[in-house]
């Protein structure tokens, strides 16, 4: 059936603030859905309370409502827009589905004559109500793990007695496995059962017999109204059952499935999707397969919506699931749509890959001191990276290189663990580093069979690891001078970085690089094209690899490179890598807007990023997408290939900024604020000299590189003292100490985890008020885009504090100081682009805490609150395309906008929830209030010291 012409206006529900288990993948899906509906001339109305998203940009939908995700907001919107014909709730994760159900139960959709599209309520209910789901699966003959539902403590105990241990407890109607746990022993059961029941909004848990060690798979499906179903992607979890799929290392396509078993699984998935209801849209199904000669398949769960995995599958295959799912929801059939990559073949098909992708989650356990770092049924990661390669090994290496955890890849970087007992323990209790530990275990000589016995990871993966290690061992017998081309090429094909190879050979990274040049071993770029090159692709979505040569009839010998360089002027935007606390979706927002602005300014735009959840890695965003680690070697090769006019580093957070120094050293132009200025702002000594010269006050401070020095500094500065490392983000390692013992301990701790760092020690202004300003500067003029005041007193990280735009109680005198200081600093630093400055205000005097000449976390918030495209402006200023005075600034805001941090503490039950200078929140939401008399503001204000530490 063609498009349903009755649908003219559609409401999309977003997923709200970022929390663990529901992150920016829903910004990607929502953004795609909005674009997709727009293409069809449909009016779009969006509700989402998360201001850091791209989807909430005024340009994305016809009407954007930055409102709390409540039925009250829904009613308000429906009253203002009686023309809304339908609601699409499948793009905003479980939050959106839950809100949709609530509104349905309250009869709101019916009252306003709004049709639910993309899913049906029964399907959501069936899949979320485990008991109903189980009954249905039994009816259609799909096997599941032995399972029972308990709505009371007593019921739970009875079930445990029947199943025995280990078993899994899962709470009904929760996100990202909240409240889920594996219980190995009876003694832990009571506590976990009680918690599971408490977390579930309907006081219900499911208890399953644990299928530990079974192989885990996911399939991504699309179905149209004509009941055509296609499988977009198969994903294999390298970590078998027992670890939440969001915390598992996953691989696509499935690596160890025979056709027979895969087709059986495909049949089951299709049967399941058809059984849960009659709807057109996307769906995710999870399975477990017994690792024995039976190859039994059991269903784990089905989600009738786009998901984290569907975002990954879209990036993994090039098939934009959310975009197509939105089209299916408005009535199109798959055979009426085009393959978005080839633009010549049908969307009714199943993508095929001629490469491998590996996803590795990114954890932030260091932010949750005291948390249980073991992986299990409850998701704990805050972000993820994806590596694409022409082999599993290459993809795995690229993913590890993307993580930004100071590793260069697997092994060969001097950071290997060599403690036998520790290795065995780390294999047993998987945490963030198991992916590395497996390599270390092989290097240590622990038999694969033993590693398999402990981890249950399929032997095929372990053999791949082993092959890597054997190659490392072989190369280590050579020197840079006698290493041959074949071996070096093989090492590069298997993903080893130049740095790692240098480590093996005992030489410099640059020597390996030069050797590669000399031997003609160059990175080539291949397309992600959905079809393994069967058809010509139109979409410039690339990844790098190393290939064997081909030779043409006229004697030319080369490795085939598909990325053709145009003669247009180009700009590269460096992305922000995996999401983590302190560097999240805000920076993706900035990167995407930077790309769009550069495009408007007439540049060919090139995006480099490795985060599969984001809009920046949507192949529709930049003119060219390189899905690559934001890692020096990869970036430098792209720059050499593309020869851009320059590189934008100030939009991608610390990830991109960190690379500025090396770019500068290699003579690559940094667009906007120079490396010198970036470095000046980061270097406390020179920066304070700059402040002094400009008569700008700052808290007394000094630097130290050892505990001894720090103690000496403490003699000069009064306690409390704020200690922090330089070049970090989100207040990592930042602490307020009140005496010498504390100071010494913290300095020793810090220098152990971040060796050779220069530590900054500030006198801490106790009881001060904090504020921050963001500004755009072109080197001559400065425009302050917004000033925000923190509601909590000084001492809580800016990312964790509630803040108002504009300030709620700063006097004219203070405001004037803030403005003056901001302008002076921006100019003194020769800022070209964005700058963020943080202030502490005590006794009506404004002190500078720090200045960052780059896009900050607050820029998207201010842009949304004022309805102005500040990143767009700043990018044009950076490029020299426009001056500050060329813009007609016109911020619109009645009353105040409050930024509220959102935490994911429920995923870490034993963690201290106290807030301090180190950031802990995972997301934020925006709240508009008319005046300070608003109850919500009053409430926040009265609670402002509640979580404060010391």
């Amino acid at each position, binding site marked *: 059936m063609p498009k349903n012409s009755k649908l003219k206006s559609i409401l999309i529900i977003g997923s709200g603030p970022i929390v663990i288990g529901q992150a920016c993948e829903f910004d990607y899906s929502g953004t795609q859905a909005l674009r997709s509906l727009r293409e069809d001339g449909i009016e779009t109305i969006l509700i989402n309370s998360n201001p850091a998203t791209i989807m909430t940009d005024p340009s994305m939908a016809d009407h954007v409502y930055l409102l709390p995700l409540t039925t009250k907001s829904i009613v308000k919107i429906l009253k203002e827009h009686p023309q809304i014909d339908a609601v699409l709730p499948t793009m905003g994760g479980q939050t959106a589905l839950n809100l949709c159900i609530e509104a349905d139960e309250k009869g709101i959709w019916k009252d306003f004559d709004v049709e639910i599209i993309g899913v049906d309520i029964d399907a959501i209910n069936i899949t979320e109500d485990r008991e109903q789901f189980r009954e249905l699966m039994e009816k259609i003959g799909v096997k599941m793990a032995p399972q029972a539902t308990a709505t009371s403590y007593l019921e739970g105990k009875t079930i445990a007695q029947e199943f025995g241990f280990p078993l899994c407890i899962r709470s009904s109607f929760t996100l990202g496995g909240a409240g889920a746990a594996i219980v190995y022993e009876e003694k832990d059961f009571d506590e976990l059962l009680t918690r599971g029941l408490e977390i579930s909004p309907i006081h219900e848990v499911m208890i399953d017999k644990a299928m530990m060690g079974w192989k885990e798979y996911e399939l991504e499906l699309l179905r149209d109204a*004509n*009941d*055509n179903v*296609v*499988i977009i992607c*198969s994903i294999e979890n390298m970590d078998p059952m027992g670890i939440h799929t969001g915390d598992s290392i996953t691989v696509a*396509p499935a*690596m*160890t*499935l*025979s*056709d*027979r078993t*895969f*087709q059986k699984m*495909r*049949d089951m998935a299709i049967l399941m999707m058809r059984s849960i209801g009659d709807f057109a849209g996307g769906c995710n199904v999870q399975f477990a397969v017994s*690792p*024995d*000669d039976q*190859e039994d398949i059991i269903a784990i769960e089905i989600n009738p919506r786009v998901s984290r995995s569907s975002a990954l599958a879209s990036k993994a295959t090039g098939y934009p699931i959310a975009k197509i799912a939105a089209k299916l929801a408005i009535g199109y*059939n*798959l*055979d009426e749509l085009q393959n978005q990559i080839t633009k010549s*073949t*049908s969307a*009714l*098909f*199943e*993508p*095929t*890959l*001629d490469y*491998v992708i590996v996803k590795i989650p990114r954890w932030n356990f260091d932010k949750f001191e005291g948390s249980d770092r073991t992986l299990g049924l409850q998701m704990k990661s805050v972000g993820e990276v994806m590596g694409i390669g*022409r*082999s*599993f090994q290459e993809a795995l290496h690229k993913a590890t290189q993307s993580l930004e955890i100071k590793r260069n890849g697997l092994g060969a970087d001097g950071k290997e663990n060599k403690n036998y007992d520790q290795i065995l323990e780390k294999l047993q209790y998987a945490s963030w580093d198991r992916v590395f530990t497996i390599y270390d275990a092989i290097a240590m000589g622990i038999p694969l069979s033993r590693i398999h016995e402990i981890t249950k990871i399929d*032997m*095929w993966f372990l*053999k791949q690891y082993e092959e890597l290690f*054997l*190659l490392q*061992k*072989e190369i280590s017998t050579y020197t840079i001078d006698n290493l041959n081309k074949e071996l070096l090429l093989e090492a590069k*094909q298997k993903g080893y970085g130049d740095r790692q190879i240098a480590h093996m050979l005992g030489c410099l990274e640059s020597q390996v690089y030069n050797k590669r040049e000399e031997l003609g071993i160059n990175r080539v770029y*291949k397309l992600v094209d959905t*079809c*393994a*090159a*069967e*058809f010509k692709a139109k979409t410039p979505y690339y990844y790098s690899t190393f*290939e*064997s*040569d*081909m*030779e*043409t*009839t006229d004697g030319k010998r080369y*490795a*085939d490179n598909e990325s053709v360089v145009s003669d247009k002027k180009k700009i590269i935007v460096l992305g922000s890598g995996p999401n983590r606390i302190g560097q999240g979706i805000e920076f993706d927002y900035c990167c995407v807007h930077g790309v769009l602005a550069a495009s408007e300014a007439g540049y060919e735009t090139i995006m480099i990023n490795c985060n599969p959840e984001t809009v920046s890695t949507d192949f529709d965003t930049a003119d060219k997408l390189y899905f690559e680690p934001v890692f020096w070697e990869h970036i430098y090769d792209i720059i050499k290939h593309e020869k851009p006019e320059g590189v934008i580093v100030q939009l991608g957070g610390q990830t991109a900024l960190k690379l500025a120094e090396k770019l500068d050293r290699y003579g690559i132009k940094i667009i906007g604020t120079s490396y010198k200025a970036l470095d000046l702002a980061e270097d406390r000594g020179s920066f304070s000299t700059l402040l002094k010269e400009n008569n700008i006050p700052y808290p007394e401070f000094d630097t130290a590189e050892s505990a001894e020095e720090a103690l000496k500094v403490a003699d000069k500065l009064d306690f409390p003292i704020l200690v922090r490392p330089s070049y970090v983000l989100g207040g990592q390692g930042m602490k307020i100490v009140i005496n010498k013992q504390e100071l010494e301990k913290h300095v020793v701790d810090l220098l152990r985890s971040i060796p050779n760092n220069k530590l900054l020690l500030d006198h801490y202004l106790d009881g001060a008020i904090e504020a921050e300003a963001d500004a755009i500067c072109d080197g001559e003029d400065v425009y302050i885009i917004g000033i925000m005041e923190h509601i909590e007193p000084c001492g809580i990280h800016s990312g964790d504090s509630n803040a108002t735009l504009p300030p709620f109680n700063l006097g004219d005198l203070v405001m004037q100081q803030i403005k003056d200081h901001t302008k002076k600093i921006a100019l003194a630093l020769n800022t070209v682009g964005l700058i963020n400055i943080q202030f502490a205000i005590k006794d009506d005097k404004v002190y500078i805490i720090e200045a960052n000449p780059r896009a900050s976390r607050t820029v998207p918030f201010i842009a949304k609150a004022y309805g102005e495209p500040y990143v767009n402006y700043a990018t044009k200023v950076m490029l020299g395309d426009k001056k500050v005075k060329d813009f007609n600034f016109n911020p619109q805001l009645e009353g105040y906008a409050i930024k509220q941090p959102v935490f994911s503490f429920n995923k870490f039950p034993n963690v201290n929830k106290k807030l301090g200078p180190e950031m802990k929140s995972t997301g934020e939401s925006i709240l508009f209030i008319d005046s300070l008399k608003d109850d919500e503001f009053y409430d926040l204000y009265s609670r402002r010291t509640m979580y404060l530490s010391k």
Partner: protein
Amino acid sequence: MKYQKRQKAIILLADGTIFHGKAVGNKQGTAFGEVCFNTGMTGYQEIFTDPSYYGQLMVATNAHIGNYGTNSEEVESDSIKIAGLIVKNFSYEYSRDIADSSLEDFLDKNNLLAISDVDTRALVSYIRDHGAMNAVISTEVDNIEGLKKQLAEVPKMEGLELASKVSTKEPYYVGDENATYKIAALDIGIKKNILRNLAKRDAYIKVFPYNSKFEDLEAFNPDGYFLSNGPGDPEPLVEAQAVAKEIIKRNLPLFGICLGHQVIALANGVSTYKMYNGHRGINHPVKNLKTGKGEITSQNHGFAVNREEAEAHPDLEITHVHLNDNTVAGIKMKDKNCFSVQYHPEASPGPHDSDYLFDQFIENIKNK
């Protein structure tokens, strides 16, 4: 365990283009055939043993081949039928509980030459742009001129009859002899899973050599007739076309798959042609024009039925089309009990979306 160095090997195309790689298992040798690619991500063993691939050098586009070893039950004929194998990454080590050998051993047992570490993506793009052509894979990397000479003598696929090379020499039976239906199947390269699918539907099948006469088939007293898939050009298969004509003349239930489908078209006077690249994979979209529904299908063909002629033919109706290029994917005869599809409802490898065609054949037999 120690690092294994592999010897050099190449693939040389008929137009002189060379792709470099390494010899799987350090085997020496040379193999000729028409180079073609398969885009399936699973089912390599089924593909290698599919008789339709006889005489072809197979490029597997999936990044890894051999991961789950081989299993004696997952074969489509009794031996490997491809002429040679070209892959990116070859898995010497495999992991599957029910596998009985590694792919390397399986290839060895069948004496098949394989090369790995080839930029298969560049190779596929090249074939896509330049069309299917003959090629040679060899470890004689220093004998390019010699290989070129030998390659020039390899016959073109067009006009090539290959069914005789893969067909059974003697008739044989499949299924339960007390089954409800009896089916005579003409083997011009039949896949085992077709026979399994028929047997599963309560049929007893007698499989006949490619050059059997209609009378031979008729003597089995079958309820229905089946024309199998197979390799090569359908045009030279005059004996099979004659059999098809007889069946059609008598309006007996007839079902054809792939090469069998082409033979039925030829028997109706509709021509076939060599495709630029052919369809080989398990993700091919087909639309059933009767129901309006899509099917994801397994395909493997280098020849196709002329669409204009089929459309213009008074007795024929196009029932299925390939959604990517609108080629003919299925036909039926308007007033006869005869239908056929270009793709593989038996899958193996591939999706089971088109299973219903076997049911339809049984229905046709019931309602004859």
